[in-house]
């Protein structure tokens, strides 16, 4: 008996434009790059929507219609959702159609896909609440399972999330967490048998997410039939195969011409050929299977890189400095009473900002192994710190009345007003 638990992460940060030292105190718009650059959020959102989200959603909807057994789960960050509303509302609609089938679960996470858990439990909980509210508003469902930014996990995070009433959460099936154990069972958090965990099967997940189009890989080309055989081989060897990956795998990381959409389209039928195979969502997995053991994670574990730790976001001095400066601002920002200052501060909590400052891969000459919209980690840091300094000024000077009114009207209303003006 093997049940596949598919979970896709959908996230887009609000990338900071090339904000210069001399803009501090004069320019309070940080995310509105309109140039032909990869920091132009509207441009990126529309590009990824067309290459990945829309076609992949179409394939999934087709699969859900043909196969009543097929199920998947998503977590869509709040900051991605609000950008879809602004720049590509048709993406929201296509996700709504998926959720309406009743076989697509939406998971909980921090609204801003943030690293808030590092220093501020209050802010972490607030962002989780904000996200739940947004999901309720757009999809009419209440998330019951949590996944943290980049699958970052530690005992204390599980404790916080359990306190908030969630059934369980997702984490990386890192070797050092599991030791000799297999990721194909349900586990539970340290000292809490009621808070359950699903651990990513990184081998099979990465076969799709990273190796799919690698012609140097001995298994290339990967067909749905071959993949289904690997799934079959797990029969009798566990309950659930957790395939967790970025949703951008489909069409953005693996381009359409690699055959990734055909793979996704053919996969359910191939998997279901074996009568013992099925699909589950995380909530179903938790209610169906009991925990076989406890997971103790005294140190942070993530799904990033070979290290599976936090080094992608906090290893060099500029990352530590930026995180320190960010958290230092929390109390000032919250005391300022200016909603636009608070909102911008939260947008700066997104993990991607710190990821762009990573110099880890930069050393190996492996510059193309990861994506960075900035010329270098240093450019990312400079823009971030300049913006943070402007935000500090705003927080200290208090709310700008004219500005807040403008901020308070919705983006649609703003568009209409703009149209009238011109």
């Amino acid at each position, binding site marked *: 008996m093997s049940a596949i638990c598919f979970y896709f992460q959908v996230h887009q940060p609000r990338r900071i434009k090339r904000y210069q030292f001399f803009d501090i105190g004069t320019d309070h718009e940080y995310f509105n790059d309109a140039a032909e650059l990869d920091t132009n959020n509207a441009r990126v959102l529309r590009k990824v929507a067309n290459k990945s989200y829309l076609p992949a959603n179409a394939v999934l909807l087709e699969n859900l219609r043909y196969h009543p057994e097929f199920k998947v789960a998503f977590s869509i960050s709040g900051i991605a959702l609000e950008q879809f509303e602004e720049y590509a509302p048709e993406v929201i609609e296509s996700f709504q159609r998926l959720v309406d089938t009743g076989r697509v679960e939406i998971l909980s996470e921090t609204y801003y896909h943030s690293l808030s858990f590092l220093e501020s439990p209050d802010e972490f909980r607030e962002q989780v609440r904000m996200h739940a509210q947004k999901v309720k508003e757009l999809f009419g469902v209440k998330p019951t399972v949590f996944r943290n930014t980049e699958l970052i996990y530690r005992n204390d995070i599980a404790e916080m999330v359990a306190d908030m009433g969630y059934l369980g959460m997702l984490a990386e099936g890192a070797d050092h967490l599991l030791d000799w154990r297999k990721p194909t069972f349900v586990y539970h958090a340290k000292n809490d048998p009621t808070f359950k965990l699903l651990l990513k099967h990184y081998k099979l997940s990465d076969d799709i997410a990273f190796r799919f189009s690698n012609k140097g890989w001995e298994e290339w080309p990967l067909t749905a039939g071959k993949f289904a055989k690997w799934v079959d081989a797990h029969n009798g060897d566990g309950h659930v195969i957790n395939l967790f990956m970025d949703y951008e795998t489909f069409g953005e990381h693996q381009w359409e011409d690699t055959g990734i959409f055909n793979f996704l389209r053919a996969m359910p039928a191939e998997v279901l050929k074996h009568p013992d195979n099925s699909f589950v969502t995380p909530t179903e997995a938790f209610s169906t299977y009991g925990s076989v053991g406890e997971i103790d994670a005294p140190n942070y574990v993530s799904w990033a890189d070979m290290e599976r730790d936090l080094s992608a976001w906090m290893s060099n001095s500029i990352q530590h400095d930026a995180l320190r400066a960010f958290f230092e601002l929390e109390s000032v920002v919250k005391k300022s009473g200016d909603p636009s200052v608070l909102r911008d501060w939260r947008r700066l909590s997104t993990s991607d900002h710190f990821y762009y400052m990573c110099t880890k891969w930069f050393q190996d000459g492996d510059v193309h192994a990861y994506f960075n919209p900035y010329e270098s980690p240093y450019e990312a*840091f400079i823009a971030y710190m300049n913006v943070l300094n402007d935000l500090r000024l705003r927080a200290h000077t208090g709310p700008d009345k004219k500005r807040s009114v403008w901020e308070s009207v919705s983006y649609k209303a703003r568009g209409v007003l703009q149209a009238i003006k011109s």
Partner: protein
Amino acid sequence: MYGWEFPPHNSGGLGIACYGLAKGLVQEGVDLSFVLPRKYPVSQTGAHMLFADESNPFDGEEAELFASGYINEERLKFLRGQYPELQYGPSLYDEVLRYAALSPLVALRSRPDVIHAHDWLCYPAGIAAKRATGAPLVVHVHATEFDRAGFNQTNPINDIERRGMHEADHILTVSEYTKNIIVNYYDVDPNKVTVVYNGIDSDDKVVVSALEGDMKRLKDAGWGIVLFVGRLTMQKGPDYFLEAAKKVLSRRPQTLFVIAGSGDMERQIIDRAAFLGIGDKVIFTGFKRDKELGRLYQVADLMVMPSVSEPFGLVPLEALLNGTPVIVSKQSGVAEVLRNALKVDFWDIDEMANKIASVLEHPSLRETLATEGGREVRAQAWSKVAQRCMMVYKKLVKSLLHV
């Protein structure tokens, strides 16, 4: 191998590059004869040093004055007036041709498998040696007249460069940037060009004692120090450095801009600093080397190389080796190899000022750039450069045997 200048009596990067490469080649087991136009005492590398003209030995100071290929006609006239007893040709070109005339003798004596000539000053000597011995010729482009003066068809240096490149069996350039220039402006077949970046050896680091006196007091009081190292010529972009300084000072008055170098734009740059009203924040130290330069690197929070056109640019590597982070212009060869450096277009004053201010403002940025950049630079040993050259030599010798 034909060079023009050599440490300790070099006036610029060409001598340093020749020294580093010679040392690297010897280290890699190459039997190297290094030829210079005239005799004077040189730093030891393990190569056999040969002098085309042994009859007119220089002492140190004269050699230094003579050494640079970058001196202009005016400077040469001055030199000839200064040292009438030396048999300078009537012009720099005559010196270059004189070198070429004497070169076959040296070549025949050392029986090279490959001839390697550095920059236009040595191309005629290289060509003459090739004709005399039949050995294949490699020319090594460290700089072109295009970098120094823009493109001017009637310039005789252009003709010498063009002839050297076309007679060469293979060409080495110090960057892709320079390769593009010679392909586009000298009509060179890109297939006979190999990019060989310059290197630096860790023992080139200057060891200086701790900061003392006034400088330390300034730093403790929160002053930032920004360094420019290079000749004050149009090519090096000192004027862009000043404009960026003006902009930084408008926000961060506690900053000193130190200009280490001399050249034909010196007067103009001093006047400009005064005109911009930042004369008191710009310090001119004149040309510095060795220990003094090392001290400047140590004092500075960062070094800026705003070159308008820079085939390679060794100075940023020196700075990093001494623990100073760097901003380099995108119009430089070194920008191609150095990842842990900030990069700007030389004309983008706003961005240059933004980056200068950011480095001064954030110690973490300074530290990360210096640490990561330092690590990167220490991996660029001259022996690796030598290995790249040897691959080219081997290919040439092999193809000759097969003919």
